[in-house]
C-alpha cells in the first residue's frame, strides 16, 4: 500500500484498487499511479479496497468529514456501490472511475493501450468533478392522508391507513359511501355483496359489512360525505387540500324511523325517491336530503321525533394538510352515446348495471305466474374494443354478464338467456368455472358480434347476428337486450388530474408511474392511485391494491424526503426567459418567474422578460432542460465543461476512438454486466456515463466528433422506459440535429442510438465490436493514404 500525505480540503484523494491482481495482466498499475498522482492531492493504492482493511480506511476517511473529494478508481459504479453500500448509506461520498468492467476486464493483452485508456478514465474523473451541493435538510412529511373517493377501494385504503396510525380524510362526493360495488347486488368472484371489509381484531369473523365494521369508526378516520376536492396546493409531502362540503341536513341524531320520507311531498329528479331519501346504509347516516329537488318546506323536520333534521347547515370549505393523497375515484359505465347504435336508451335495452338493480327488484317480488321476461339477449363488448368507440377491453364485463346470466336462469328457469360474444375473457381457473356454471345453468352462447339493435313498431328490439359457429344469420326478437358496456374514467378524473398534476393515459384513466413495478404510484410524487381510477378493476384487485397502497403510503409518510440529486442552476445573465425548458422538463419542475430588477440579464431582453426557475423539490436532475436550453443558461451537476472535458481527456489523440454516451440506468447495468462477463471489445471504445441520456445535447455529439471521434453511440434505456420519462426522446432529437449537421460537413461520423436493458447484456460486446469496426472502416476511407489526418481529426481552416 502506498500513501502520501494527509487530507487537504478541496483536494482530490484517489483510492486506487488493484482488484487483487485481476487487472495486472493488461494494466500497469505503477504507471497508472504515477500518472494519477501528477494531478491530484493524494493517491492511496491497495490490493483490494473492499477487504476489511480497506473498509476500515474508508470509514476513517468518511468520518474525517473534510472537504476532500474521494475518487475511487477500480470497479464499475454498480459494483463499487454494492461493495461500499453500507458506508455510502452512512454518508460516504465516493466518485467512481471504472477501470475494471469498463477497461481491463474487457480488453486484450495490449498492455500499453489498455493502461493508456485506464489513465484517461482515471484522469477524466479526477480532473473534471461533478458539481455537488449539500442536499437540503430532509423534511418530515405531514402525517395525514386525503383519500379521494369513498368506493370500496377508497374505503379499504382509508381504513387500512387509519389502522396503521395515520390521520385519514375520506372524501366522497355522494351522500353514502360504497360506490358502484355496493349498489349492484352480488358481485364477482364470491357471488355475495361487495360491501365487505376485513374485520378488525376486536370483532369476530374475518370480514364485516362496511356498516358494521368498526374500522370505519377509527378515531383517526374522518369521513367527508357530499364533499369534493376544490383545490390542491403545496408540495409533495405537504399538500394543502381544500374540501368543499355540501350539508347532509340529517344529523347523526337520526334513529332511522323513516317518518320523514313518508311526509315528504317532493319527488327527486329521477323520480325514484323523495327529496329526503335513504339509498344505502353505510352504517353512519341513513337519510339524506337531495338539495336539488328539496323545497325546504320543513315537513320532515316537523315530523322528525328526534329533531335530527337541521336546515341551518350550509356548504363549507375546509383546508386539510396531507402528506399523501390517494386518488380512488373509480370508473363509470360507458355513457349512452357510445352504445346508441345498439338501441340504448330504451325501455327494453338496458346496461348490465341497470340489470343488476332490476334483478334486485325482481328478486324482491314473487313471480308465481309469469316471469318478467321470457327471452333475454346479452350483447358482449357493447361499444368496446371498437376503434370508433371504446378501443380497449374493460375486462370486467364478461364476468359480470356470466354472473347475471346465471342469476337470471336461477331466478326464472323458464327464461331463455342468450349471450352474443366474440371472445369471453374470463381469466384464470375461477373465471372458467363461471363459464362452465353458466353453461350448466342453461345459458345459450352464440359466437358473433351484434352490429346494431333496432326497435320495431311495438318497441321490441330486433337483432340480426351472424352465428359464426353455425355459419348462418340468426334474428332475435327478445323481451330484453342487455348491453355489456365497458367502463370509462369517472367524470371528474380530468379535473382532479389537473389539480394534482397527474398524467392520464390514452383512455383518460390515471396513468401509473410504471406499469410493471410502481403500478399504484402516479406521475405526481406523493399521489397514489387506487382501484378503478387507473383502469377498470374487479373487487379482488381493488382490495389487494388498497392494502398495497396502505403499505406504500405508510412507508412514504414515515420516511423523510430522500432525494440526493443536485438540481441544475440557472444563470440569470444568460437566461432569456423563453419556454424551452418548461416545455422540455418531464416533471414540471421548471417554470418562468418574474425577474428581479437587480438580477443580471442578457442584452436585448425586454423589460418584463421572465426568468427560468427550477424547483429543487420536484427536479430529478436528469439534465434534459440543460440539453435543450438555447442560451446554455442551465448548468446541471454534470455541467457542459465537465462533460466536454471528460470526452476530451478520453479521446484526444487516440487512434480512431469511438465515443459512447451511456445512461447510468438500464444501459449502464447492461454495460457493467457485460463487463462482468468479460465480453471483449476494442480499446478505442471510450464510455462516458451520464445520469440520463437526456443530458446529451447536439453540442456534445458535435464536439465529440470534432475531438476526433470516429463513431458516436448513445446507449439509453429500453424504448419508452426512460426513468426520467423523456430522456430517450430528447436524446433522439438531439441525435437527429447532430447527425444532420455532421452529415452536411465533410466529416460525417457514424452515429447511433441504442436502447438497452440489463437483459441485453449479451449483445453489448457484439454491438461494440461491430460498431467500432464499422467506424474505423469509415474513418480510414475518409482519410486517403498520403493525406495525414490533422491531429484530433479537425478540418483545417482554409
Amino acid at each position, binding site marked *: 500500500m502506498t500513501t502520501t500525505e494527509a487530507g487537504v480540503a478541496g483536494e482530490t484523494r484517489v483510492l486506487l484498487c488493484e482488484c487483487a491482481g485481476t487487472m495486472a495482466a493488461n494494466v500497469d498499475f505503477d504507471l497508472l499511479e504515477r500518472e494519477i498522482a501528477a494531478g491530484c492531492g493524494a493517491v492511496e493504492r491497495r490490493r483490494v479496497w473492499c477487504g476489511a482493511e480497506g473498509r476500515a480506511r474508508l470509514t476513517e476517511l468518511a468520518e474525517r468529514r473534510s472537504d476532500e473529494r474521494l475518487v475511487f478508481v477500480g470497479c464499475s459504479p454498480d459494483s463499487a456501490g454494492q461493495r461500499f453500500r453500507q458506508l455510502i448509506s452512512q454518508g460516504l461520498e465516493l466518485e467512481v472511475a471504472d477501470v475494471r468492467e469498463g477497461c481491463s476486464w474487457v480488453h486484450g493483452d495490449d498492455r500499453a493501450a489498455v493502461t493508456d485508456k485506464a489513465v484517461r478514465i482515471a484522469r477524466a474523473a479526477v480532473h473534471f468533478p461533478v458539481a455537488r451541493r449539500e442536499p437540503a435538510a430532509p423534511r418530515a412529511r405531514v402525517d395525514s392522508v386525503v383519500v379521494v373517493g369513498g368506493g370500496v377501494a377508497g374505503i379499504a385504503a382509508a381504513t387500512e391507513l387509519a389502522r396503521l396510525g395515520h390521520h385519514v380524510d375520506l372524501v366522497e362526493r355522494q351522500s353514502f359511501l360504497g360506490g358502484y360495488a355496493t349498489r349492484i347486488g352480488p358481485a364477482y368472484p364470491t357471488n355475495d355483496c361487495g360491501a365487505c371489509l376485513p374485520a378488525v381484531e376486536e370483532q369476530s369473523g374475518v370480514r364485516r359489512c362496511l356498516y358494521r365494521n368498526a374500522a370505519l369508526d377509527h378515531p383517526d378516520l374522518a369521513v367527508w360525505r357530499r364533499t369534493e376536492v376544490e383545490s390542491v396546493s403545496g408540495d409533495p409531502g405537504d399538500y394543502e387540500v381544500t374540501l368543499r362540503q355540501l350539508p347532509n341536513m340529517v344529523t347523526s341524531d337520526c334513529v332511522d324511523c323513516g317518518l320523514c320520507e313518508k311526509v315528504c311531498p317532493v319527488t327527486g329528479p329521477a323520480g325514484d325517491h323523495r327529496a329526503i331519501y335513504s339509498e344505502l346504509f353505510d352504517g353512519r347516516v341513513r337519510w339524506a336530503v337531495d338539495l336539488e329537488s328539496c323545497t325546504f318546506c320543513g315537513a320532515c323536520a316537523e315530523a322528525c321525533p328526534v329533531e335530527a333534521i337541521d336546515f341551518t347547515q350550509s356548504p363549507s370549505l375546509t383546508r386539510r394538510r396531507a402528506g399523501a393523497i390517494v386518488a380512488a375515484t373509480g370508473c363509470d359505465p360507458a355513457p349512452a352515446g357510445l352504445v346508441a347504435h345498439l338501441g340504448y336508451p330504451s325501455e327494453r335495452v338496458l346496461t348490465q348495471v341497470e340489470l343488476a338493480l332490476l334483478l334486485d327488484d325482481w328478486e324482491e317480488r314473487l313471480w308465481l305466474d309469469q316471469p318478467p321476461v321470457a327471452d333475454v339477449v346479452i350483447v358482449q363488448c357493447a361499444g368496446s374494443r371498437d376503434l370508433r368507440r371504446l378501443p380497449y377491453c374493460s375486462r370486467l364485463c364478461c364476468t359480470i354478464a356470466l354472473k347475471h346470466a346465471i342469476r337470471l336462469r336461477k331466478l326464472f328457469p323458464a327464461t331463455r338467456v342468450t349471450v352474443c360474444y366474440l371472445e369471453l375473457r374470463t381469466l384464470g381457473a375461477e373465471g372458467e368455472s363461471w363459464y362452465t356454471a353458466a353453461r350448466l345453468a342453461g345459458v345459450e352462447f352464440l359466437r358473433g358480434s351484434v352490429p346494431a339493435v333496432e326497435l320495431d313498431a311495438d318497441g321490441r328490439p330486433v337483432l340480426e347476428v351472424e352465428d359464426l359457429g353455425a355459419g348462418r344469420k340468426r334474428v332475435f326478437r327478445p323481451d330484453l337486450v342487455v348491453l355489456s358496456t365497458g367502463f370509462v374514467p369517472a367524470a371528474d378524473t380530468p379535473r382532479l388530474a389537473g389539480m394534482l398534476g397527474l398524467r392520464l393515459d390514452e383512455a383518460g384513466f390515471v396513468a401509473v408511474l410504471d406499469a410493471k413495478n410502481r403500478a399504484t404510484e402516479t406521475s405526481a410524487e406523493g399521489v397514489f392511485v387506487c382501484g378503478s381510477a387507473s383502469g377498470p378493476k374487479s373487487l379482488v384487485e381493488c382490495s389487494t391494491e388498497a392494502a398495497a397502497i396502505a403499505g406504500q403510503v405508510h412507508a412514504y409518510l414515515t420516511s423523510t424526503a430522500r432525494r440526493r440529486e443536485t438540481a441544475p442552476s440557472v444563470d440569470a445573465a444568460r437566461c*432569456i426567459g423563453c419556454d*424551452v425548458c418548461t416545455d422540455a422538463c418531464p416533471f414540471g419542475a421548471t417554470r418562468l418567474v418574474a425577474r428581479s430588477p437587480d438580477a443580471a440579464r442578457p442584452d436585448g431582453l425586454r423589460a418584463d422578460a421572465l426568468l427560468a426557475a427550477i424547483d429543487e423539490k420536484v427536479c430529478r436532475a436528469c439534465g434534459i432542460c440543460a440539453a435543450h436550453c*438555447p*442560451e446554455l443558461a442551465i448548468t446541471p451537476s454534470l455541467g457542459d465543461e465537465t462533460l466536454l472535458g471528460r470526452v476530451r481527456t478520453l479521446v484526444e489523440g487516440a487512434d480512431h476512438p469511438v465515443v459512447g454516451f451511456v445512461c447510468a440506468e438500464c444501459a449502464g447495468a447492461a454495460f457493467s454486466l457485460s463487463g462482468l462477463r468479460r465480453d471483449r471489445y476494442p480499446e478505442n471504445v471510450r464510455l462516458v456515463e451520464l445520469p440520463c441520456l437526456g443530458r446529451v445535447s447536439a453540442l456534445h455529439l458535435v464536439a465529440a466528433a470534432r475531438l476526433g471521434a470516429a463513431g458516436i453511440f448513445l446507449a439509453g434505456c429500453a424504448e419508452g422506459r426512460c426513468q426520467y420519462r423523456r430522456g430517450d426522446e430528447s436524446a433522439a432529437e438531439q441525435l*437527429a440535429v*447532430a447527425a444532420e449537421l455532421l452529415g452536411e460537413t465533410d466529416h460525417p461520423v457514424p452515429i447511433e442510438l441504442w436502447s438497452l436493458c440489463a437483459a441485453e447484456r449479451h449483445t453489448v460486446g457484439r454491438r461494440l465490436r461491430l460498431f467500432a469496426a464499422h467506424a474505423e472502416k469509415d474513418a480510414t476511407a475518409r482519410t486517403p493514404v498520403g493525406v495525414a489526418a490533422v491531429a484530433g481529426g479537425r478540418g483545417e481552416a482554409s
Partner: protein
Amino acid sequence: MPLTARGRLILGSLPGVVPSTTTDGIGCVIVRHERLCIGCGRCVQVCPSAALAESSRFDPLQLYEAPAGTTRGALAVALRRIARHEPAGSFEVPSRVRTFRTIEFDKARCLGCGACTRACPTGALTARPVELCEAGGPAVPADGGSPVRR
C-alpha cells in the same frame, strides 16, 4: 441574430467544413405567415426579446387585401359588407381592442428561441432552419475552434 448561443457554439464545434444551411435544432429563423395570423398577440406576450410587438395602428386596407378563405379574408368580406365607404387608411386602435391587431416583427431583435411558434394558436409562426449566410456566420468559440469556411 436568429441563431441561439447554443447554436453558435454547436456550429463552432463542427469538425471540417461548416454547411451553409442547417437544421432548426440549434436556433431558427422565424417565418410569419401573415394570412394565418389572427392578431391575438400571444406571440407578443411570450417573446423574450420584444421582437414581436402589437402595432398601435390598424390598416383596414391591409385586411381588405387578405386572401379569401382565410380568417382575415372572411373578416374582410364581412367588413366590406357593413362598411359604408372605403377606409381612408390606417387609424389608431383603442387600447381595449385585444384581437386583430397588426403584429410587427423586428427581425434584428429576434433571438431564435422559438417561443412564439409554440404559443401561436393558428400556426402562423413557424421556425425555419437557419441559413448561415443570412445569419452572418457563427461566432468562433473561445476555445479556438476552426473558423468557418464559406
